[in-house]
């Protein structure tokens, strides 16, 4: 989806009513406000997929309906770049890229029916590393888990990885928390009288 960025009015001395900052406030409020936690939402999504997995035919139908043709093309492109990025050892070399790639792996969870278990494996391994972006070994394990589970693509594997997936959901919530924390800092700085 193409999204054009609004005028960058954060910290602008001339913007009296900054529309970008207002929208950013809405963004943060929507995530950290009174709505259900991401963990609850993703858990529900995953449970749907677990139920669908009780019948292979049902699961295939579910995925066919869910993944539109255009989206499938993007998914194919995404997988291609994902493989290119993960094979080149960026996870082990660079902490910041490890974090970005970890986020990308988690993002694929709600996209495809069978991906929850796959992505859950990554999330669990990344979470298990203690601090995202630090453990080379853990990331290599995560990568190996992805390859293994992608190759399996079976309903049984999905069922067996329920616990792991829930850990992946936890990692997803952590990414969200970090993002919102940074954005809240920006908003607070902008509204601080001393920084105006």
């Amino acid at each position: 989806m193409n999204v054009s960025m609004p005028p960058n009015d954060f910290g602008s001395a001339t913007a009296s009513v900054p529309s970008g900052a207002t929208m950013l406030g809405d963004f943060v409020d929507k995530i950290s406000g009174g709505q259900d936690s991401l963990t609850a939402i993703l858990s529900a999504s995953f449970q749907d997929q677990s139920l669908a997995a009780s019948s292979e035919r049902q699961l295939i139908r579910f995925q066919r309906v869910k993944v539109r043709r255009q989206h499938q093309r993007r998914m194919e492109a995404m997988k291609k770049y994902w493989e290119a990025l993960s094979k080149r050892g960026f996870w082990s070399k660079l902490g910041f890229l490890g974090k970005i790639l970890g986020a990308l792996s988690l993002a694929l969870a709600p996209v495809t029916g069978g991906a929850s278990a796959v992505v859950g494996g990554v999330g669990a391994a990344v979470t298990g590393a203690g601090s995202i972006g630090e453990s080379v070994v853990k990331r290599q394990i995560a990568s190996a888990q992805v390859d293994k589970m992608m190759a399996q693509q079976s309903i049984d594997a999905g069922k067996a990885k329920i616990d792991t997936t829930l850990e992946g959901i936890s990692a997803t919530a952590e990414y969200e928390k970090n993002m919102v924390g940074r954005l809240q800092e920006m908003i607070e700085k902008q509204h601080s009288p001393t920084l105006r």
Partner: protein
Amino acid sequence: MTFASYQNRPVANRGMTIRELRGINDDEFAAALSAAQKLLDGGAEEAAVDVLAGLAMYDPFCPEVWRLVEQLCRRRGEPEAANLFAGLSRAMAA
């Protein structure tokens, strides 16, 4: 989108991305992208990474996210990774 409204949607129509699950509209997402750009421009790279990682997780199909990640990689002196993310951005825009 609330949990309740999510539950009430037909299975086939449920969210494709976490952004959609969260009910973030285009303007709000664009504002967050703009904030990430501001962090990058201001040299706050660690904060930018956290925001971009979150946005990439929210909507990995948004080309702007990967364009900003490309910028980040170039600033960090990683042209190979930058080129890959540039390609990803183009692929998502196509």
